[in-house]
């Protein structure tokens, strides 16, 4: 009897101790899942081509290594207290991350996984089993042949060590940990950017030598890595000793905003923005132009989504209207009807888009929030179907589209020699910049006006706004109309940038891209939208291998941003406050209809008994 109690007591204690490790085990399972995911979805394989440090580590390898280290870091944080427990926990999670790949090595070939998941290729097995590092000759058979036990254990053991490393990182005091993380981030970042930085530097004699020292043809050189580490430490020391940001923040607000600081800083920023594309050659200027174009469209949607809170998933509809109108009016090809100058066509395109905005908007703007999203999505689809259809083929060319849309300056008869700095995408860049300035100006002016306030009011609480005398349909339709006009402007510039518009450019992904830009940058925030365009458009354009995984990463980014920072990366004050505020008031009222006071509708059962 007493022994049984003792046993059960002991097992209870054991259970409790095991219970404390449950979060660690869950983290381990998740880590294993993530490492399988990144390999099988093809990210690791695709990024094998690009190296961070030449002949040392590729991007693909870095993804796996960082997964294991991060897993270890999480494991250490979740383990029950104590240094030893943290190390054990991190190693365990790292082990599980690696063990998942070990299982893949055995089971993959056994069930002929490749027939279903093409990424489970011999190359992948070779990579994750460390064939090269271990010097296994017959890579093709290694997971069956003599080397098998080693290759099987390799990912698990490596995962365990990397996990422990991550655990150590978690145990380090803040300063060295931050230093290490920043160094790693700097090396990975510079490694990714190396080819982009290298080619313009090679073209100038002054910088060519440096470029050769730092950058290999693919990734960084060892010298480069050392130099980056040196710079990171130097910057850190300077920062530590001088503390410029803290000193600046400590200054009174008036001093921070003093013209002597603001004007030179603004002028410098303007100069950088204006001269930006001149420093690059090759495909970079067109990437910059594309970023500017998407920033312009993002700012247009920012009025609808960011300010008025209308989730418009049909942006592409007005984009298409603007692009096709401009193409029809300016094209010198067979489908062109007027051969107007670009600058005359633009206001016309905007007006037509605005007209479509009213036409499509009025019937649906009385609908509440999320229905609006799906209705606008429907519009986007209708327009893209129409663009492809035989119905309009004779007017807008169907899949072949409208060609020979002249560059803006060419359309007004200004001949530019091909080597002039305005010849290529740069003129689109400058036109986009002007448009961005205009839209930003309009947005700022409206924000502090009757209309802007009404938009914010509608976004925060539609019912109360209406009860204060705001006509919802009219106010929303203005936002929708302006958004449509700027979408049309974006389409017009798009047609000029590519010199044509074809029906395959008109698809849902355009809408999603722009929504992503606005949401990730920061709803309602102009700098946020620009940052969003740089991140969402710029990065994938710079890393072409990445193209396949663009939308995958956008999807993840959208979820994560909504999770951790629903106000976006660079939020506006209003957006930030609004979201937090809404979170509080929405708790009991997830539904749109006004809150019927439950106590007021239903007679409380407890009190009716006495009546």
């Amino acid at each position, binding site marked *: 009897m007493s022994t049984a109690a003792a046993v059960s007591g002991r097992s209870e204690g054991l259970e409790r101790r095991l219970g404390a490790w449950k979060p660690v085990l869950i983290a381990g399972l998740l880590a294993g899942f993530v490492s399988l995911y990144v390999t099988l979805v093809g990210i690791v394989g695709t990024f094998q081509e690009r190296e961070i440090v030449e002949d040392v580590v590729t991007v693909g390898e870095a993804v796996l290594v960082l997964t294991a280290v991060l897993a270890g870091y999480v494991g250490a944080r979740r383990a029950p207290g104590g240094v030893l427990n943290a190390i054990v926990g991190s190693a365990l999670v790292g082990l599980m991350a690696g063990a998942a790949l070990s299982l893949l090595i055995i089971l993959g070939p056994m069930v002929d996984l490749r027939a279903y998941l093409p990424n489970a290729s011999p190359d992948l097995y070779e990579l994750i089993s460390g064939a090269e590092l271990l010097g296994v000759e017959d890579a093709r058979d290694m997971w069956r042949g003599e080397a098998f036990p080693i290759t099987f254990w390799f990912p698990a053991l490596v995962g365990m060590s990397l996990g422990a490393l991550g655990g150590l990182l978690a145990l380090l005091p803040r300063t060295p940990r931050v230093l290490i993380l920043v160094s790693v981030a700097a090396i990975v970042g510079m490694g990714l950017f190396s080819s982009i930085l290298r080619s313009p530097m090679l073209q100038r004699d002054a910088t060519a030598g440096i470029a050769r020292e730092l950058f290999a043809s693919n990734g960084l050189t060892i010298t480069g890595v050392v130099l980056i580490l040196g710079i990171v430490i130097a910057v850190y020391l300077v920062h530590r000793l001088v503390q410029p940001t803290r000193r600046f923040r400590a200054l009174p607000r008036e001093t921070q905003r003093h013209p002597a600081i603001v004007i030179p800083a603004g002028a410098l920023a303007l100069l950088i923005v204006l001269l930006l594309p001149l420093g690059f050659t090759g495909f970079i200027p067109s990437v910059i132009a594309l970023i500017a174009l998407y920033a312009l469209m993002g700012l247009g949607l920012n009025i609808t989504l960011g300010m008025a809170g209308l989730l418009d998933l049909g942006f592409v509809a007005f984009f298409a209207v603007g692009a096709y109108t401009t193409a029809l009016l300016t094209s010198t090809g067979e489908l062109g009807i007027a051969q107007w100058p670009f600058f005359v066509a633009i206001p016309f395109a905007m007006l037509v888009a605005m007209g479509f905005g009213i036409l499509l908007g009025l019937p649906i703007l009385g609908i509440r929030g999320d229905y609006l*999203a799906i209705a606008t999505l429907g519009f986007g689809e209708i327009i893209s179907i129409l663009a492809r259809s035989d119905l309009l083929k004779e007017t807008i060319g169907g899949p072949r589209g409208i060609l020979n849309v002249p560059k803006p300056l060419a359309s007004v008869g200004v001949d530019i020699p091909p080597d002039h700095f305005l010849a290529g995408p740069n003129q689109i860049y400058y036109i986009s910049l002007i448009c961005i300035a205009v839209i930003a100006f309009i947005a700022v002016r409206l924000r502090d006006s009757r209309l802007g306030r009404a938009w914010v009011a509608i976004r925060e609480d539609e019912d109360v706004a209406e009860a204060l005398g705001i006509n919802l349909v009219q106010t929303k339709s203005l936002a929708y109309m302006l958004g449509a006009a700027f979408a049309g402007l974006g389409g017009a510039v798009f047609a000029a940038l590519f010199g044509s518009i074809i029906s395959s450019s008109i698809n849902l992904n355009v809408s999603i891209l722009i929504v992503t830009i606005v949401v990730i940058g920061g709803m309602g925030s102009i700098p946020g939208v620009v940052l969003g365009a740089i991140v969402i458009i710029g990065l994938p354009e710079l890393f072409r291998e990445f193209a396949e995984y663009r939308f995958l990463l*956008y999807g993840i980014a959208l979820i994560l941003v909504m999770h951790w920072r629903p106000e976006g990366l660079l939020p506006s004050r209003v957006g930030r406050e609004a*979201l937090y505020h809404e979170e509080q008031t929405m708790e009991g009222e997830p539904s749109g209809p006004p809150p019927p006071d439950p106590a007021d509708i239903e007679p409380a059962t407890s009190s009716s008994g006495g009546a």
Partner: protein
Amino acid sequence: MRTTLRTRRAPSRTETAFEAAVSAFLWAFRIVLVLIVVVGSVITISSGKFTLETWVDLVVKGAVQGGIYALIALGYTMVYGIMRMINFAHGEVFMIGIFSGYFAAEILDELGILNANVVASLFSFLLMMAIAACVSTLVALAVERVAYRPLRNSPRLVLLISAIGASFFLQYTVAGLVGPGIFRYPTIDILEEKVGLPVISALGMSWIQVVVIVSALVMMAVLYLFVMRSKIGTAIRAVSEDKQTAALMGIDVNRAIVTTFAVGAAMAGAAGVLYGLLFGQVQFYTGFIPGIKAFTAAVLGGIGNIPGAMVGGFVLGEAESIGSLLIIDGLGVPGSGQLKDVIAFTILVMVLMFRPQGILGERLSRSRA
């Protein structure tokens, strides 16, 4: 005091003119739509271009397509009912169902079971449905756990954007895992045969078409009973009605929501197999458009209403199938088939405009909801 506080009194006047213009516009919009439908139909019917067989065939196809819409729509309608959000990822859950069925069928085919004999084929079919339902459910629960549950108390816009993120994540995960190509579904031969039964043979239906319609009806009935009769079904209805009160009454809100997602996803997964067998191919973005159309069906029938999803699905299927020929072709538009999808989205917009509560939906507490 009065004069020092106030500066002006009269409300601005532009609004009334605007209101009048809007209502005139909306009337014109309605009239044009009705005219298009009537004129198109009259021309088509009077031209006698199409035989009765064509129409019967279209009706059958519409019903079959509608059955699939209805099954997907259930997931939308239940999730909307309980969480007041459009589960954008539901179309992807459906697509994953199609793929799961595909892989199951491939393996069964390799093992020589798929078309061995009638019993084996039937077993294979049921197994495919079960596997697809399970995989879809797992995926939907993972999405709910990761993308929705942490945001349950956030503004609806946040939840909606997260749902769009989840949708893209699933789509491109599948593209990454299996590749972006088109996958041809293996056929189950007996399902391709024409039905030899008396009445049905007159309609020229194949077994797969019959199976789709019958399984849609059966699953719908089972689901209805589940929601109306079972304990957890009652909990789901209570939570749909009022989350807070339900929680106060001791109902496990979490469990109700999770069950809703699971049931909806299982239906979508099963619908995926039916879709695959019916149309014979699948690609990573196959789920998106049917997903949105199924949402249209849910809205059409009355969101949150299970029989409504059924009715909406069938109505939408028929409208698409018949409408493209009846209306668009009648107006002399080339390539009427291409514009099939336009009909669905036009219906969506029209329902939202004129009868937002749907065919079977109750009026929400505020008539303009």
